[in-house]
């Protein structure tokens, strides 16, 4: 078996954990019953790899079959690696009427025109998502299957999620997407994270949202702690208000798991007790990064516990509102990649 196929199999076996192997291979469906049973009985990863290499020889499997296996695994386990969100803007008149077959044909032909050697695989997943696997090559080399780019596009929405993409590959992907979906621009949505499901839910609002209400909140505090009854009575209303506003800003129930948010501040220094600095013309440049295992949950707790003042500042509530986690904040008008207007305190 040639080197590149062997390396691909080895890479796949390293990526797929043993416990997921059985189901993934079954879904793949390219093993005979006997071969499948043989794989199930082996425990060690190394032996499994050797066995799979032998099976590939036996069944005369090609690279395209192996990439199929990789794609099956990725689709079932999308919450790994880094995903970056992009948005298509300025739809043409017929953008809404693009259907799956049209999109597939057009995307493949456009990308093939732009990149001489490229291997494209498109699969539609059950939940309206179109998964695309791209292995890039160029005039002098075959497609590199060890460094593929995965693209997930939800038809009928302008959202596209992409894994690794070099600066050389970006314009080509951008062009192909724009032409096949009939939009004008393919822009960076300033949202990134490890969980595809999380950033998708955030961008497409698929999480429990809480709307402002004038009446006593029906939401109850999830954690019941034992406190002094006097304190409880006194704090009940302010605590309920804080919780309500925290949920309005970030959502109720389980929140999408984001790991970090970065704010590049280029605003003037703000502190009325320091006249020297406030008179300064130049901005006070700093970068603030918030990180946590579940950022939105942390921020919501900051708001409900009072560490962050409520109502929650637009800078923080923009994360779920605009579905972004990278912001450039300037004093006057929209910055180059943000639409934030700094409120005057």
């Amino acid at each position, binding site marked *: 078996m040639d080197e590149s196929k062997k390396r691909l199999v080895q890479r796949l076996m390293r990526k797929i954990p043993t416990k997921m192997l059985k189901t993934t291979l079954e879904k793949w469906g390219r093993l005979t019953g006997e071969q499948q049973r043989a794989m199930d009985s082996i425990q060690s990863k190394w032996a499994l790899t050797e066995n799979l290499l032998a099976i590939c020889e036996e069944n005369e499997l090609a690279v395209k079959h192996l990439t199929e296996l990789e794609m099956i695994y990725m689709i079932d386990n999308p919450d790994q690696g880094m995903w970056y969100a992009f948005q298509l803007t300025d739809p043409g008149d017929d953008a809404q009427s693009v259907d799956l077959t049209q999109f597939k044909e057009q995307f493949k032909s456009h990308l093939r025109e732009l990149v001489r050697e490229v291997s494209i695989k498109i699969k539609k997943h059950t939940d309206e998502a179109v998964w695309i696997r791209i292995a890039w090559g160029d005039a002098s080399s075959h497609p590199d299957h060890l460094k593929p780019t995965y693209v997930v596009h939800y038809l009928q929405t302008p959202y596209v999620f992409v894994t690794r993409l070099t600066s050389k590959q970006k314009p080509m992907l951008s062009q192909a997407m724009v032409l096949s979906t009939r939009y004008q621009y393919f822009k960076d949505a300033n949202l990134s994270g490890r969980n595809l499901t999380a950033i998708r839910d955030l961008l497409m609002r698929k999480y429990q949202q809480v709307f402002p209400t004038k009446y006593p909140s029906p939401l109850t505090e999830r954690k019941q702690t034992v406190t002094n009854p006097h304190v409880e009575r006194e704090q009940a209303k302010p605590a309920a208000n804080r919780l309500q506003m925290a949920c309005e800003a970030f959502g109720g129930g389980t929140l999408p798991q984001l790991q970090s948010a970065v704010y590049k501040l280029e605003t003037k220094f703000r502190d009325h007790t320091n006249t020297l*600095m406030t008179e300064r013309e130049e901005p006070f440049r700093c970068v603030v990064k918030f990180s*946590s295992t579940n950022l939105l949950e942390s921020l919501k707790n900051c708001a409900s516990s009072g560490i962050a003042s409520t109502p929650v500042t637009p800078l923080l509530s923009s994360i779920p509102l605009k579905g972004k986690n990278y912001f450039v904040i300037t004093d006057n008008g929209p910055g180059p990649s943000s639409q934030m207007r700094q409120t005057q305190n």
Partner: protein
Amino acid sequence: MERHQNSVMRTPLNSVAVQRRSKNKSYRLSYRNRIGAASRLGLTPGLTARRLNTSRKAPKSNKITVTTEQLTLLVKTEWKLSYVTPLYRFRHTQLKIYSRQLSAFIAAEKQQGLAVDVEGTQNTFRVSFSLVLGMTESVDDAVTVHIQIHSKPLFAKQDEPQKPVWSGWLTCINGNPEYLRSLPKDFICLPLFCSSGAGGLTSLVKSWFQQSFDCCFGPLEISHTSLQWLMALWTNCQSESSIRQLKMIWTLPVEPQLQVTYTVDAEDAWELWSSVRKKNTAGEGEENSIDIEEVMSFMQGLKAHFFRHFRLDLSAGSLNEVSTALGSAKHSGMIKFSNSKYMITTLMLLTECALLKMPI
């Protein structure tokens, strides 16, 4: 009192039972026992009432006279800090003997199976003690002592040289002269202990020191105030050599824990710092000293700017780490000097912190 062959000299807890041939009665008691007898001996009662200095001289790019090769031993490594009580009868002239004694001690402990195995090294260790000259600030400071432990990596060939697997140093920079002069004659004060390397070796070295010089080690954390001082002192150096950025890492007590990394551009941090400085009241050619109020205003300004944007009060959390191009300091007691130029001022602050931890 002569030293006998055994290198391990234990001072008995009950001093009355032992007859020492020392002329002066007060030297009978070891330093550790003085804790109980403090009132009788009248040792520096004022130290416990002392606080961290509220004003300091601005750091200058010192013309350090330490040799470059010794400097490379100290910079660019992250050190774990501990404080150590004064050493009884530690002699700077007996370093070779100490090297042999410590090697033997480590070998003995390993044989007994008590020591923790150091990963990836063979069992033979060679210890070297050396003096680091040129680092002291005042006449009363004892000379810095540097210790290095070498060993061969696990699968090394016969003739491959040993590599350093652990280093540590004891130092006292600009220690409080009142305190230093009040110590009895036989005590050497090197309160700041920095170590880097396997934890097992660190505990062995500490045990040996405890047995040989009757001292105590303890963890030295860098308090919030000290971290603020470091922020201000380092930012103050911006006019002479760029700090590149001032980075602070805070953690907020929410579930799940939220970490905030607040990085300010060097120039902007410098401008804010200059704006909170009081007018220069020092004489000609003298550097104005920095007061704690200025440091706190600096911090307040940074927090206020943050609050104006995020309406999140950083005081609710704790400051864990401060770093600039000159070095980094962690609340848990880790320090790193990236640049030797302003090292001395940082060490002065840390020596002060260590001295404040002295039991008496």
